[in-house]
């Protein structure tokens, strides 16, 4: 089994991945899939300027190399 760690953010975007894991479809392909939850922001500083916001958002685990794939 090849180990892969994937970030999960919004469930609506990751639904096929969740269904694939729960139905053994990754295992069928030789993939040991582990999910890591993206960091959810709580209340944030409101701004009208996009440059005030770090575009990495909650995808910190990917940026730090802890997961190898995510979707957005």
């Amino acid at each position, binding site marked *: 089994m*090849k180990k*892969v760690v994937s970030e999960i953010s*919004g*469930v*609506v*975007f990751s*639904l*096929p*991945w*969740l*269904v*694939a894991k729960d*139905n053994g*479809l*990754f295992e*069928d*392909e*030789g*993939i040991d*899939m582990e999910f890591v939850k993206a960091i*959810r*922001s*709580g*209340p*944030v*500083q*409101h*701004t*009208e300027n*996009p440059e*005030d*916001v*770090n*575009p990495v*958002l909650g*995808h910190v685990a*990917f940026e730090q*190399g802890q*997961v*190898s*794939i*995510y*979707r*957005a």
Partner: protein
Amino acid sequence: MVPPDSPHNYPGTLGNQPIAVNFHAGSHYVGLRLLEGYLPKEKIKLVHYGSPVQRFESMLNGEVAAAVVMEPWIALGEKLGCKTVAEGHYLGAENASEDMDEETFAAINRAVENAVDLINADKRKYLHYLIDDPSFANAAAKYGGLTPEDFHLPRLRYTKPAVYTDEMVEDTYNWLTRWNLLSNEACAANLVDNRIAEPASADD
């Protein structure tokens, strides 16, 4: 989406009105794409509110005039009588690290493709993933929560992974730079690498 008692019924009256989005995410980009068809750039007033629950509740309590949300928040809003004044779809992307090898990526995609087939065969069967997700369910409980019957199924569109064409990348790149959301120094060649992606036919 606007509250039930909102005077807004289409995007054209939302000029200079605060609209909650999550900057640098889908709600930001699709919000701009929907509003720019109705309003001049200088009248579009998007405000960063972060996560879906923050955006949804700021809209519901009237703190902002509207919010850009995705499912299952759309279904919840509609159940509460909120009005959808514009609706758009956008293409998701898989972002893989440089050390993802071709064989592993292809194996992952095969599994995802099979899952897409399962979902499209019976979408309602899998809605519990959206309804029971703690980041939604905990907030939605105070509004009565959702059941699978509350969803408009054609809104949920799952397709099999496919490569971005050069034309899609170029069009998106030009749109992003026009809105000053991407450095002019970036170029398509260092943003997208299709070498390890096998073309796949999109269903539907």
